């Protein structure tokens, strides 16, 4: 029995042994030298059954647990040799196969691997731009539009999850400030390797322990864009049907260089095609314009612009020089930005305004005008910056100017009466200033700072001329403003979770403002100080893990207005009970002092780097400025005379908002939800009086209340595999406010909601689709009246790529807007383009406004007034543009 069992076991082992197969051998090169690290595989079809690698003697051994059925192939692969294979039928227990390999030239595609599309490093999201680019994308801006959570507005402004970026860096340096279009529209997308989005950004490193809701963007350049100059030349020529300039042309050259220590971008551009040249100079952080008390009194004659379609005939030119130099290894820089731009614009507009007049009847005024403006904007700024972990020092000197001329002749009609009026305006302003900011952080974490911005701005001449039917009249103004602010604070940590804040500030503004209405002799002249010492003691509490953060401040300010008033020469005036009273022949000093408190509180809870809840609430008291003391009439435009109340206005508002931002970066998903509520109270009420074609506006001394509540939700989702980005957004708001017609007070209620969706995706390799939809509903109610306006906008684009380099596209906008109660206007705009990318050259043919639509109209309800605008649109245009990368 035992013997039988023994035989059976032996037979079984023999069967098992015979099932195992082994292939051994030696791999050499053609000189019979052994080759190590050769991958030897036994493959059946596409399936790898077993594999091994050769040792330094070139020997290998591959084993299979059981002999495969049929023929298999034995492959030999190595990075430096041609791949070899041999077909075998493994019937033997052990098979020997030697192989000689033929050397090959290694042809690895260098740096061919795309990194992860998105990586997260704490608060920083690192996007590998190449992973998101579409075939037709040319500029960095094209690429940014495809990143999850990133929105790029028409003027080039970049937002992340609804928050506009507060700093735009290239390789860690802030070269351009708010004029970052110069980079995003002139740097080629393939010159950028990574786009970093820094959430909870701190522009000052000394404040890195403080909470922040700011977002910044940092661009990492590809190697080919570093250490050598590059740039692009642009040239184009075209034709616009019935345009002010039928011949369309553009020409530009941009050069730049980025090294570890030095960066520069210089550009010279000019043209009359769309906003070419002007668009690059848009300052997203403001600060390039010069606004003085004199210029802010008199609005332009432009009449606004339509939100869609090209309506402006432009001629633009600009030159800009920007450079930044690191003065040490990492923390200190010196920057110079110098630019000049010229902008000439005109467009056609018909406007119909319906006002509620004193007699409770409506007055409709129709106007036709083609406003023309010419603006020169020079600016020079220099900035020294030291931004270290423990100390921050910044000093910026700037000088800038604005020289503007406007023409706005108007053909107006009201109740069968037609009138042609000539309007001209000329104004020059300049501003010179210096901003100093110092801050440091001690070893114990105490942060203190001193900020001293000082500026002087002046409008030496502002002149408006009007004329109709032989009557000529004019208005002039001039102003000078000296502004100084001294802000300082100490932030002292007490224990590990509590921090005391003691900010003190003094804002001092000296103004000298004079207006003359030439025909009537009405004159205002105000000189004096606006002094506001401010003490804002507060505290901050955070949990030990820094997830929870609470901050509160008292915000005590002593508002002081000390003005010397001279109104029309024969009517000096003084202030009694907060109101200017004209009193013949009497002196005219006005002193007004009031203590105001603006307490505020904010709370954050950070669930993780990707999820944050925030809550803010604050009470704000705003005291009016000297503008409200201009009690003599001013001719603002040909039919509007403005007279201020002489009342020092005071408004109180309580604002509360809460929001939650949630992201799943690795799933390319973002979601933000927000709600806000504002309660407002003013001691004055805006009042308008319409008499025929003329409008007078003033303010009544009467408490006025307003209230508004809003809700927002926005989400985006990317699917990189099909280069897709989807977004949806919803807003709802409601509220009420008060307005006066003459002395009658009218309470208005409004409700608005807006829904927006967009999608961009590439369903197949040669096709790319984009679709946006925007629906808006707005209702305004007062007394027994109710006005509702809806608008629906679709826009989309189809891109076809017959070959990878050629992008044929057709895009359209379809608008359905309510003109009046039961009248809707539908309009479609079509544009087409063909773009060919060939090495360094991009050729682009654009066909704008294919259907030659010449008008765009819509209606706006402003509480009780109704404005209907009809804008002229630019005619059909063709443009051939070449961009050559240098």
């Amino acid at each position, binding site marked *: 029995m035992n013997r039988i069992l023994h035989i059976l076991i032996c037979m079984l082992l023999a069967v098992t042994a015979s099932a195992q197969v082994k292939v051994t051998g030696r791999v050499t090169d053609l000189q019979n030298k052994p080759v190590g690290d050769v991958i030897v595989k036994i493959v059946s079809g596409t399936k790898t059954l077993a594999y091994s690698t050769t040792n330094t003697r070139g020997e290998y051994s591959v084993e299979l647990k059981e002999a495969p059925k049929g023929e298999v192939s034995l492959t030999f692969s190595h990075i430096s040799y041609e791949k070899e294979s041999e077909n075998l039928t493994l019937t033997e227990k052990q098979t020997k196969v030697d192989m000689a390999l033929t050397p090959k030239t290694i042809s690895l595609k260098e740096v061919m691997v795309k990194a992860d599309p998105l990586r997260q490093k704490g608060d920083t999201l690192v996007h590998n731009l190449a992973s998101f680019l579409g075939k037709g994308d040319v500029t960095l801006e094209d690429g940014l539009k495809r990143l999850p959570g990133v929105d790029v507005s028409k003027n080039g402004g970049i937002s992340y999850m609804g928050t506009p970026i507060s700093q735009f860096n290239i390789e860690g340096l802030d070269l351009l400030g708010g004029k970052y279009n110069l980079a995003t529209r002139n740097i080629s997308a393939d010159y950028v390797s990574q786009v970093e989005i820094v959430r909870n950004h701190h522009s000052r490193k000394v404040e890195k322990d403080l909470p922040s809701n700011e977002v910044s963007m940092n661009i990492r350049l590809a190697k080919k864009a570093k250490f050598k100059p590059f740039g692009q030349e642009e040239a184009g020529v075209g034709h616009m049907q019935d345009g002010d300039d039928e011949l369309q042309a553009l020409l530009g050259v941009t050069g730049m260089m980025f090294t570890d220590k030095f960066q520069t971008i210089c550009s010279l551009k000019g043209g009359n095609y769309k906003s070419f040249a002007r668009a690059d100079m848009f300052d997203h952080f403001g600060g390039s314009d010069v606004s003085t008390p004199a210029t802010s009194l008199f609005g332009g004659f432009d009449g606004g612009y339509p939100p869609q379609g090209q309506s402006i005939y432009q001629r633009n030119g600009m030159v800009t020089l920007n450079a930044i130099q690191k003065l040490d290894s*990492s923390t200190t820089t010196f920057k110079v930005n110098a630019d000049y731009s010229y902008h000439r614009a005109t467009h056609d507009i018909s406007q119909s305004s319906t006002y509620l007049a004193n007699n409770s009847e409506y007055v409709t005024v129709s106007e036709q005008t083609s406003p023309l403006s010419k603006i020169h904007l020079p600016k020079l700024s220099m900035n020294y910056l030291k931004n270290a972990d423990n100390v921050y020092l910044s000093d910026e000197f700037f000088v800038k100017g604005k020289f503007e001329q406007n023409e706005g002749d108007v053909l107006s009609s009201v109740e069968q009466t037609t009138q042609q009026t000539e309007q001209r305006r000329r104004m020059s302003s300049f501003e010179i200033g210096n901003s100093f900011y110092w801050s440091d952080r001690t070893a114990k974490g105490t942060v203190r700072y001193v900020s001293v911005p000082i500026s002087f701005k002046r409008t030496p001449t502002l002149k408006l001329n009007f004329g109709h039917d032989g009557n000529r009249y004019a208005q002039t103004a001039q102003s000078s403003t000296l502004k100084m602010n001294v802000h300082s604070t100490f932030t002292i940590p007490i224990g590990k979770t509590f921090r005391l804040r003691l900010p003190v500030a003094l804002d001092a503004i000296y103004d000298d403002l004079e207006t003359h209405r030439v025909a009537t002799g009405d004159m205002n002249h105000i000189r004096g100080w606006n002094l506001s010492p401010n003490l804002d003691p507060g505290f901050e509490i955070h949990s030990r893990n820094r997830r929870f953060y609470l901050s509160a401040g008292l915000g005590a300010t002593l508002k002081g207005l000390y003005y010397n008033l001279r109104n029309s020469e024969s009517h000096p005036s003084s202030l009694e009970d907060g109101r200017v009273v004209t009193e013949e022949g009497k002196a005219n000093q006005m002193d007004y002092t009031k203590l105001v408190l603006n307490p505020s509180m904010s709370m954050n809870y950070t669930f*993780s780097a990707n999820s944050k809840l925030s809550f803010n609430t604050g009470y704000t008291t705003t005291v009016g400025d000297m503008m409200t003391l201009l009690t003599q009439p001013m001719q603002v435009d040909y039919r509007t005379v403005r007279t201020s109340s002489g009342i020092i206005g005071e408004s109180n508002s309580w604002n509360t908002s809460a929001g939650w931002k949630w992201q799943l970066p690795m799933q390319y998903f973002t979601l933000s939800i927000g709600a806000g509520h504002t309660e407002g109270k003013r001691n004055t009420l805006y009042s308008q009086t319409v008499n025929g074609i003329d409008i007078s506006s003033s303010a009544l001394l009467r408490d006025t209340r307003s209230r508004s509540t809003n809700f927002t939700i926005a989400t985006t989702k990317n699917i990189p595999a099909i280069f897709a980005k989807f977004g949806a957004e919803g807003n709802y708001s409601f509220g009420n406010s008060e307005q006066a017609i003459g002395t009658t007070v009218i309470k208005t209620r409004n409700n608005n909601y807006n829904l927006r969706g967009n999608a961009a995706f590439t369903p197949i390799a040669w096709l790319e689709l984009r679709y946006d939809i925007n629906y808006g509903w707005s209702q305004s109610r007062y007394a027994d009246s109710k006005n509702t306006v809806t608008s629906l906008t679709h826009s989309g684009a189809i891109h076809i790529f017959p070959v990878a380099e050629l992008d044929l596209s057709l895009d359209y906008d379809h608008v359905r807007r309510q003109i009046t109660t039961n009248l809707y206007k539908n309009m479609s705009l079509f544009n087409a383009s063909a773009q060919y990318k060939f090495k360094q050259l991009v050729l682009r043919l654009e066909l704008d406004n294919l259907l030659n639509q010449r008008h765009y109209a819509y209606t706006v309800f402003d509480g009780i007034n109704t404005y209907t605008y009809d804008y002229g649109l630019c005619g059909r245009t063709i443009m051939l543009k070449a961009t050559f990368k240098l």
Partner: protein
Amino acid sequence: MNKSIITIIIALALTIGVQAQNDSIDQAQFMAVYDYQCRTLDDEGKPVIDSMEIVVQVGRTMTKSMPWSQSSLYQKTFEEQGKIYNEAYLHMQTVWTGWPEGQTTTRELIFPYNFEGKEATPEMLWTLSDDTVTMNGYLCHKATTVFRGIEWHVCYTEEIPSSAGPWRLRGLPGLIVQAESEAHTFTLTQVRQETSPITYQPDPEARKLSYKKLLKYRHEIYGNKQYAKNPMYYLPEFQDLMHSFPDSQLTVLTKFNAVFLDWRPVLPKAHVYQPLEQ
């Protein structure tokens, strides 16, 4: 003062770099760069992701895997010095697989000394899967293994026929494109056709021991609960050590809030140790 010190150190480092040319042990056929991420906790217990880059030189007979700062790609600028400091959180070793023949040599700094451990090159038993996936433009196959207590899920590409990979991971019929465990991820980011020499410069001051002992010592030091809050806990004489170093060997890079002693990073706080092998 510091600038001149750094200049001297860089000059010395450059000199070493030049000398290293003479310590060539193989010629690289190509170079692969990996992004290495480690998911862990900081000293306050907050989740944090540390990352660094790893350069792998693949030669004919051996492979060298090293932190970016040890590679020829590292530019000796002040700006990049900070990278050394970030790498210090991750304790990444320099690994010569197949050097000497049949063995693997590992070198690492456990402050304040360099250590060098040797062992027979370990075999990794991979389970190949039929699953394929396109990753970073490569057709990749999936494979799994458990190596010294850590389970790895890997994608490799036969388009680059090399059994190399980052750190000690290797032995697949194609270059590793991505390797992932619970706490660690290696992702291939660049492939460079660079035939630079692979070097091994003997370090007479390095403490030599078996890799098994080095691993044990490493776990004892970094695995201690005190480590994250006080990375120098095991060196009670650290303050004395600080003083014993002449000023000329103390470097502070303010931008990175980093302190170096003799150009070795000294962490004031660390992150919780996540071992790559047990």
